């Protein structure tokens, strides 16, 4: 970690970095392969993915903020217990909020809202970042990671819904005669879609690396 307790306020550029890391370079799903359970389970439609992404984003930002706020008070021994308590609180809140907003969404997400508690991204950020950084930065980090997670869910959900149902957010895209690939809405489709995304990322990285090697060779 570049920053320790009690350092002067970080520059905007560093804040930006904390935010952007989660989006792309350290994307929790595509790069770190964390939080795979909701990524697979809740992406059979874009709307579900969006709801889950927003719920996780909310918990991530709130718990990061609170963890960061109490970071100097919490003794080492009960660190993890406190974090879990905080996370569980916000998950409970989200659970009730969703129920209050829309029963349909609540039914679609089911117990997976409660399972945000054990999403390792959240505890991971609390432990690795929020417990060591000031509130503002922690919130930005939470936002970055949360949006990164959201992007992952969204891209998975889009692929699955477009291929699997021929619709996007419920709107038909290809006319009535389009043959949907039902598989993508089913569990195997979840595995395959995420695997394909990971392979695309791997291939992309591989290509980038090769290009770098090439430019280096040319420069030399």
């Amino acid at each position: 970690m570049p920053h320790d307790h009690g350092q002067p306020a970080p520059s905007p550029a560093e804040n930006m970095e904390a935010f952007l890391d989660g989006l792309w370079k350290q994307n929790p799903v595509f790069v770190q392969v964390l939080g795979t359970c909701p990524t697979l389970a809740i992406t059979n439609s874009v709307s579900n993915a969006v709801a889950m992404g927003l719920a996780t984003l909310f918990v991530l930002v709130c718990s990061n903020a609170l963890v960061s706020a109490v970071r100097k008070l919490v003794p080492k021994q009960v660190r993890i217990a406190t974090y879990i308590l905080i996370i569980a609180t916000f998950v409970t809140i989200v659970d009730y909020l969703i129920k209050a907003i829309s029963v349909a969404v609540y039914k679609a997400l089911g117990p997976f809202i409660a399972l945000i508690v054990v999403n390792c991204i959240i505890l991971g950020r609390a432990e690795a970042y929020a417990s060591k950084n000031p509130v503002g930065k922690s919130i930005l980090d939470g936002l970055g990671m949360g949006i990164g997670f959201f992007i992952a869910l969204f891209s998975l959900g889009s692929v699955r819904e477009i291929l699997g149902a021929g619709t996007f957010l419920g709107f038909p895209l290809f006319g009535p005669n389009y043959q949907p690939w039902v598989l993508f809405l089913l569990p195997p489709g979840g595995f395959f879609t995420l695997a394909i995304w990971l392979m695309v990322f791997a291939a992309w990285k591989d290509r980038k690396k090769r290009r770098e090697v090439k430019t280096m060779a040319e420069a030399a």
Partner: protein
Amino acid sequence: MSAANLPQPAASDSVRMIRLMGSVSLICGLLIVGTHIGTMEPIRRNQEFITKETVSALLPGVDKQAVYSLVNGDLQPGAQPNVPVLYAGFDKQGALIGVVIETSERGYADTIKAMYAYSPDLQAITGFQVMELKETPGLGDKITKDPAFLDNFKKLDVTAGPDGKPAHPVVTVKHGTKKNPWEVDAISGATISSRAVGRMLAKSTATMLPLVRKNLDRIRKGN
């Protein structure tokens, strides 16, 4: 949680720790309870809204609803958690249009939950709506929207036999071979889900309809 494995903190430390944990718990508790109280009303409204919508969709023209639950083998007024529920629907004049009954049955992928409307006057099922299902999209989920299939439930005969149960239990038959008014014409290619619907209706009508008939006068009066 794993304090036993760690070096013993000094007395002042543990007091601090307990105080801290206490205050964190307090904050968390307050947050949760606050949310709980704040959302209680919207959640209840949401739930009611959904059932009301369904009941009015199944019983067109409904104005007032009454709820009954199946408790100890008989109908009791009011909703009870975790038991099959029955809704009676009345029109503006307060006359009973029909009842809507909750039911569920195991389908291809998971349990299908549904509601159906029963008209005591016609002695027939007059509507059917799936509430929850995980059937294969594009195949099993046709039972929710396939118009030809839903036509089965415009007037599905469940005339009572001597024991109060339907004389001819509802049965799903192969696509295109429906001959009798108590038969459900299956969706071709989604036979399992269609069958689950037939089975669900047969089971539910066998238990619920005798009760409805027994309590019909009470229900008509609305209590």
